[in-house]
């Protein structure tokens, strides 16, 4: 990989949006609906508002540290030890996220299309292009990402509007779902849907123009929130939500219902094609990010070989899960709390403390 390449404004927004939409396709709304029942739409609105406020707060906290990401800030705060800890935590988080995404998607593809192929084959098929593409560099990946994100978001909108005739409006009731406390108090855990914030923290040094960070962050959060809301509402209105506990890909089931007259039936293949593309670019970007963090922690100059190690690690980790039940448990419980603790709580604390330290330093200097 060359020296650090920069990406532009639209590309950065598209990366954030793609992270969220890839997770939406992989059963994220189903996790939300299992938690909060028929009031999930209220919950998503509430969580989105909190996420936007959080985003504004983060932008303000990042301002004094121009062109440094969270690893640099933690170095500033606590020296090399804190930098290493935070870096390792984030690396493990991204590896875990990628392995879950690959495994879930590959198992679903195996169920739908490739019943006889061994799972390792499918996983390899996902990882080898990532290997090839990682040599090329982030600029090309982000450009392709922009096209894929536009196609992906458009396709998601088509799905949501094409199933509109199957909507049963009364399935939104009862409004408060499992109760007010479960919707709002416990439901705040649903903010794990915005795990794209983890990517946001590392975005500043890669940007062409660090002043546009605020615009990028807010616009990507709003777009992700809109998509999340639309997909949750659509799923609640089409399926009785009791049936969500045993579904694999909820949005795929939506695509099976689409039909325009007698000609367009079972158009799910096109959508699977687009989702494969988006998963690939998601993986490419995530692996790039992991190597970048690793380079920062350990100060290696050239990490071409790091890619091989990383791919192997993700491959082995995604083979480790024995069955879907463990995977669902990991997704619903482990991933959820890890995101909340790492991305929202820990990073917030680090940022606040770093800002206080900077202010004190200025105060002392004055």
């Amino acid at each position, binding site marked *: 990989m060359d020296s650090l390449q920069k990406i*532009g404004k*639209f590309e950065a927004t598209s990366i954030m949006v793609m992270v969220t939409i890839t997770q939406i396709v992989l059963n994220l709304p189903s996790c939300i609906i299992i938690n909060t029942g028929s009031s999930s739409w209220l919950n998503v609105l509430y969580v989105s508002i909190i996420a936007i406020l959080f985003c504004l707060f983060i932008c303000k906290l990042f301002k004094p540290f121009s062109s440094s990401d969270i690893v640099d800030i933690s170095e500033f705060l606590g020296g090399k030890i804190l930098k290493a800890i935070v870096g390792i935590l984030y690396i493990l988080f991204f590896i875990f996220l990628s392995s879950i995404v690959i495994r879930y998607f590959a198992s679903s593809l195996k169920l739908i*299309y490739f019943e006889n192929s061994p799972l390792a084959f499918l996983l390899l098929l*996902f990882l080898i292009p990532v290997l090839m593409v990682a040599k090329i560099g982030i600029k090309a*990946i982000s450009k392709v990402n922009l096209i894929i994100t536009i196609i992906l978001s458009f396709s998601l909108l088509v799905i949501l509007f094409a199933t509109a005739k199957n909507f049963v409006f009364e399935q939104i009731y009862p409004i408060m779902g499992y109760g007010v406390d479960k919707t709002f108090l416990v439901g705040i855990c649903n903010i794990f849907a915005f795990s794209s914030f983890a990517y946001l923290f590392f975005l500043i040094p890669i940007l062409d123009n660090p002043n546009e960070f605020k615009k990028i962050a807010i616009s990507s959060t709003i777009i992700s929130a809109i998509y999340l809301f639309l997909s949750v509402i659509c799923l609640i209105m089409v399926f009785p939500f009791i049936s969500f506990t045993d579904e694999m890909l909820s949005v795929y089931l939506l695509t099976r219902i689409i039909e325009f007259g007698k000609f367009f039936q079972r158009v799910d293949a096109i959508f699977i*094609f687009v989702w*494969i*593309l988006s998963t690939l670019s998601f993986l490419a970007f995530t692996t790039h990010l992991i190597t970048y963090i690793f380079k920062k922690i350990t100060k290696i100059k050239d990490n071409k070989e790091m890619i091989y190690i990383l791919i192997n690690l993700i491959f082995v980790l995604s083979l480790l899960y024995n069955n879907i039940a463990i995977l669902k448990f990991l997704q619903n419980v482990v991933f959820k709390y890890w995101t909340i603790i790492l991305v929202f709580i820990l990073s917030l604390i680090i940022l606040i403390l770093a800002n206080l330290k900077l202010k004190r330093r200025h105060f002392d200097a004055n």
Partner: protein
Amino acid sequence: MYIILGYLAGFLGIAIGVFVQLVLLADYKSFGVSYLAPYLPVTNLNTDTSYFIKPMWRREKRAGFLNTKNPNSQEKISMAWKFWKGNK
């Protein structure tokens, strides 16, 4: 190449082929201009974005990737003869 990929892995193989080909295309440059130049990167929506092209008489700025000296290619109202009333 796509036939081999399709044979190997069906649908998935073709999607992978498309992805890798797109990324490679995005990286190549010819005469200093990248292959996907008019389509990506989209920096300024006013210049020619090539997804939705404006009609000839509305294209006032030259494309960004050419790095020209003069960014304007036509003056603001290019079909001035259309709006004259009577004699000039």
